């Protein structure tokens, strides 16, 4: 059995000592992927043109959030203007008091109009269209995207500049709206859109802060939870990443506003109602001075509510702030990679595709070297040695597998190093799960090597292999996305490169759902290997 490993090790040894082979196997894909990384990854000036007018479908199911219900006045269906008590002997409404002491408007205190709908806001931002349907506080001022300042969207942004995209969201996305989440997902599956943004019915409730009402001992919490689902097309992973990043950034900003709003409103309302409660609702004895609400607090409340729209604009400049918990991303393995730069994304996607593509060549031409061994009589010398023929066959097959696995490992490691150098910090673009990484590499190597065994076993002469081998590799490469573009998943899945790249992308995203990708690769690899080995035995004779 040792002889098998000696033969396999010899195969690897020969590869490493062949400068031309090293050049083709390692340097070429590294250079190609790096050039692609710079070309499409946003480092060069031409980067933006690759990511314009990405088709996105939007489904806004958000039902909004009723502010007054949350502060406990819904049961009486009263606005704050309806809540009156005596001030200096004269009946005065809370609304009047607030308006007299602050800049808060009457509209803001009306029960019918105090309805937040963050879903509408998000939809208007993504669609880059101002809100025209006035619906409560958030619609008092329409968004003006000309005033939007965001490093993501400007050419000279500083630390958060990710894509160097010089334009507006209007340039970035072409948004269509749909009413059904299922229809939107199906449209993405068909490849009509790069992503679907599905805003759940309870999104605004989820976003709004929890208000505690200490006065009556009760507590009102936000409504049913709602998430935003970014359903990305695996055929356009980078575009889907951009959609997700923008959505996440906007939602993140909503979260900030929500926290600020919650803190101020909760504080103010609690103080107000505690005093009302302490007075046993004897509003005739109520004095505004007893409320202990400072003018500054009221101004904060007022300012927050009144200027909500404009305050959204500037913070949008931090669209990529991580940590929002309101996003659920389906299908796309983007959970961790979203913190990476575009160059790293490119290295993950195209680098993986290049690695698998060149591994196919190595698998085929590595096995084709059996003809070279025959020509230089080393095969005859091996056959004349006291080594069982099956050992020679297994050694050759395992050797080729070893070479391909080594090649893939080196390439992925090189891509990681390059991405780290470009980024200026250690960046594990294929994740840190070493066992899973090795499993994926083995699965890809098994498939690539198995294909090589089959091709060389199938075709009778080295010339035939040299003609058909590249054709097969190129076809699989095109289907699997090795040439910088991706076909719809339904087509891409034909190519095992698709599964290899998918597995590597998931590794990079830190996802654990590798079973299908790895399973497909292993299954195809085993079949190719077994069938190929049976055919290849014919090549091991003189």
């Amino acid at each position: 059995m040792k002889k098998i490993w000696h033969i396999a090790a010899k195969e690897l040894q020969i590869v490493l000592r062949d400068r031309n082979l090293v050049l083709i196997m390692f340097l070429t894909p590294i250079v190609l992927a790096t050039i692609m990384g710079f070309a499409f990854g946003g480092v060069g000036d031409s980067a933006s043109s690759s990511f314009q007018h990405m088709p996105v479908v939007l489904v806004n199911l958000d039902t909004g959030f009723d502010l007054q219900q949350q502060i406990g006045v819904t049961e009486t269906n009263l606005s704050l203007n309806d809540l009156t008590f005596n001030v200096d002997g004269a009946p005065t409404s809370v609304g009047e008091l607030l308006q007299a002491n602050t800049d808060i408007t009457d509209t803001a205190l009306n029960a019918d109009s105090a309805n937040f709908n963050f879903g509408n806001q998000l939809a208007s931002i993504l669609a880059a269209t101002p809100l025209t349907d006035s619906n409560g506080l958030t619609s008092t001022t329409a968004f003006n995207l000309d005033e939007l300042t965001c490093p993501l969207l400007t050419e000279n942004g500083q630390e958060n500049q990710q894509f160097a995209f010089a334009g507006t969201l209007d340039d970035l996305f072409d948004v269509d709206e749909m009413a059904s989440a299922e229809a939107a997902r199906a449209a993405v599956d068909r490849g009509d859109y790069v992503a679907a943004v599905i805003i759940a019915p309870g999104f605004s409730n989820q976003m709004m802060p929890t208000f505690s009402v200490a006065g009556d001992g009760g507590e009102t919490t936000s409504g049913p939870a709602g998430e935003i689902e970014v359903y990305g097309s695996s055929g356009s992973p980078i575009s889907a990443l951009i959609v997700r990043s923008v959505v996440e950034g906007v939602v993140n900003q909503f979260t900030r506003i929500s926290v600020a709003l919650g803190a101020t409103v909760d504080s103010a309302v609690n103080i107000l109602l505690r005093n009302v409660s302490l007075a046993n609702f004897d509003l005739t004895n109520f004095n505004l001075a007893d409320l202990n609400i400072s003018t500054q607090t009221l101004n904060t409340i007022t300012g927050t509510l009144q200027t909500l729209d404009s305050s959204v604009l500037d913070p949008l400049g931090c669209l990529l702030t991580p940590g929002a918990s309101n996003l659920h991303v389906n299908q796309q393995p983007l959970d961790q990679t979203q913190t990476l730069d575009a160059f790293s994304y490119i290295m993950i996607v195209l680098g993986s595709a290049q690695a698998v593509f060149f591994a196919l060549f190595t698998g085929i031409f590595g096995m084709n070297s059996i003809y070279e061994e025959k020509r230089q009589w080393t095969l005859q010398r091996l056959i004349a040695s006291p080594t069982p023929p099956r050992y020679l066959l297994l050694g050759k097959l395992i050797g080729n597998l070893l070479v391909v696995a080594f090649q893939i490992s080196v390439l992925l490691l090189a891509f990681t190093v390059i991405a780290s150098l470009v980024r200026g910090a250690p960046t594990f673009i294929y994740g840190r799960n070493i066992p899973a990484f090795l499993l994926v590499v083995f699965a890809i190597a098994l498939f690539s090597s198995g294909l090589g065994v089959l091709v060389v076993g199938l075709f009778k002469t080295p010339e035939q292999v040299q003609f058909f081998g590249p054709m097969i590799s190129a076809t699989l490469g095109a289907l699997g996305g090795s040439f910088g573009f991706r076909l719809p998943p339904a087509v891409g899945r034909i190519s095992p490169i698709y599964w290899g790249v998918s597995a590597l992308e998931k590794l990079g995203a830190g996802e654990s759902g590798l079973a299908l990708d790895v399973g497909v690769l292993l299954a195809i690899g085993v079949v190719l290997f077994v069938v190929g080995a049976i055919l290849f035995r014919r090549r091991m004779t003189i």
Partner: protein
Amino acid sequence: MPPMVQTQKLCKSFRRSDGSMVDAVKGVTFDIEKGEIFSLLGPNGAGKTTLISMISGLLAPTEGDATIGGFSITQQPIEAKKLMGFIPQEIALYPELSARQNLLFFGRMYGLGGKELNRRVDEVLAFIDLADRQKDRIDTFSGGMKRRVNIAVGLLHRPQLIYMDEPTVGIDPQNRRRILDTVKQLRDQFQMTVLYTTHLMEEAQELSDRVGIIDHGEIIALGEQGELTQQVGEEDRIEIGLGNRAVPATYPAELQAQIPGVTRILYTPAEQLAEGSSQSTPARLTAFAKRGRTALPQLIQVLNKDGYEIQSVEVREPDLEAVFLALTGRALRD
């Protein structure tokens, strides 16, 4: 003492591309005794390599069998191969690897390992006088150095039988001399049995204890050199090179009739060296006579009179080539 190699009616047939069959080796039977150098002599295409490929286990015989040290090459191939060192005509080495790496790898294929393997590698490197170049890649070596490493691989496991297939092809005289000396050294110093194939009569004459002459897949003569030359008598051979002028078919017989002492005259027409080449070997007349030097002046006189241009003249003692010529009517180079 049983022979080292025994072949029994070895046959090998190949199917041509047009579907017809060709018999490359036709029922060959012979023995090689232990400790002797046995040369298999024959022109290119005679079936030498096919015959040896069957003996060394590279090709399965269509019929018959061969034993190496008593082990059948078809029934007990591993045991038989352990006894044999294989030195093919081609440089069967990995050019990307160093001499030492090649030796280590093939040594492992023969079951060697550890310190023993390293010791053997050092020994054979010293034997071929390449210890100082052992770390250099094979593709940086000269042709002669590659040949020596090629031989060293076959000697690594100290086999009882060494098979050498035309090991001096394409190398300079100095390296050729070194290889021929090595072959004799293997027999004399290490008591190895050597099966040596060549198409060069001189090599077979210098090295061999016994010679087998093969032509068209059959052994046409077998024995010691003296025995073989006796088969063609004690006649000298007069080789006369002519120009490109064609010789009528009846001319050799007419010429023989005019010169006393000449028993036979064979004509070999001019032959192109390679397809499309402008160079060719001259036509030759080969005359056999008891006393070649006496018959020579008369031969030259008649040829001059008949208008033939004589380009070269050589008188040779009886040798293996004469045997081959006598048996086949063709020169060995044909």
